[in-house]
C-alpha cells in the first residue's frame, strides 16, 4: 500500500473544532461513492476491529444514515448522520449524533456538525472533514466519553505522542 498519503489531524479547542485531512489514491467519484453509498460505507467506516452495519440510508438533503458500529463482542454503538446539504461530488454537510436502535437521537450526548469537502489533487483525491462541536460543554462531553468508552486504543509511549503532536 502507498504510505505517502497525506494525513492531518488537527484539534482546535478555542474553535471547538477537529479537522481531518486525508489524501486517497483514487479518483474523486470513487471516493465520493465510498462516503455516500451504504453498501460501501459498511465496508470501511468503523475503525478496526469494529465493523459497520447500516440500518437505514437515505442520502439526500433531509435524509439520514442510521448505522451501528459493532465490536467483536457484538456490542452495538448506534449513530446517525442527518444530511443537511449535498453538493455532488464536491461536498456535504451533516449533523452527527448518538442514537438508539430505533434511530431516536440522544440529546444528552454530544453531537457535532460535519462539513466534508472533496477535491482533486493531481491523480488523487483530498478529503477534508471539519467536525464542529456546538459548545465547549459538548466538546468536553465528547472528550470525557472518549476517555471512558471501550474503544480505547493502546496508549503509546509519551515521547511518541509528543512527536505526533509536533507534526500536527
Amino acid at each position, binding site marked *: 500500500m502507498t504510505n505517502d498519503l497525506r*494525513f492531518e*489531524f488537527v484539534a482546535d479547542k478555542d474553535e471547538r473544532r477537529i479537522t481531518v485531512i486525508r489524501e486517497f489514491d483514487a479518483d474523486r467519484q470513487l471516493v465520493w461513492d465510498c462516503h455516500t453509498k451504504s453498501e460501501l460505507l459498511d465496508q*470501511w467506516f468503523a475503525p478496526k476491529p469494529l465493523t459497520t452495519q447500516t440500518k437505514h440510508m437515505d442520502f439526500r438533503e433531509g435524509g439520514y444514515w442510521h448505522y451501528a458500529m459493532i465490536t467483536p463482542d457484538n456490542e452495538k454503538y448506534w449513530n446517525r448522520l442527518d444530511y443537511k446539504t449535498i453538493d455532488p461530488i464536491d461536498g456535504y454537510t451533516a449533523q452527527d449524533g448518538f442514537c438508539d436502535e430505533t434511530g431516536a437521537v440522544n440529546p444528552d450526548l454530544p453531537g457535532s456538525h460535519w462539513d466534508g469537502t472533496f477535491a482533486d489533487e493531481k491523480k488523487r483525491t483530498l478529503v477534508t472533514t471539519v467536525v464542529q462541536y456546538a459548545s465547549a460543554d459538548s466538546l468536553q462531553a465528547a472528550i470525557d466519553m472518549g476517555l471512558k468508552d471501550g474503544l480505547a486504543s493502546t496508549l503509546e509511549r509519551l515521547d511518541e505522542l509528543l512527536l505526533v*503532536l509536533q507534526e500536527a
Partner: protein
Amino acid sequence: MANQGVVLDTVFHALADPTRRAVLQRLSKGTATVSELAEPFDMALPSFVKHISVLERSRLITSRKSGRVRTCSLERENLVAAERWFDQLRAQWASRYNNLDNLLAKMSGDKNDE
C-alpha cells in the same frame, strides 16, 4: 484515569501551540529552568513566560522558584490523560481511512481488470 474533566479543557488549549508543545517535549527529558527553556526560541522573555503560564494553568507543568531561578517540570499524568483522547480519536480516523484505502484499491483493481 482519575484526573480528567476540568483539566482537559485547558489542556486542549495548551497543546494547540507549537512553542508550548516544544516546551513539553523538552521537559519530557527532565526539569529545566525558564531561561533554559526559552533559549531555543527567538522570542522576548515576557512572551515566553506567558506560554509557561498557560502550561501551568493547564497543570501540564509545575514550577518552583528558588531565589531568582524558576524551574519547571512536566506533570506526566495530566498530559497522558489528554493525549489519550487525541490519540484515540486520531487512531480511529487513521484506522477508518486505512480501511478505505484497501476498499479503493480493491475497487480500482476490479475496474482495471481487462
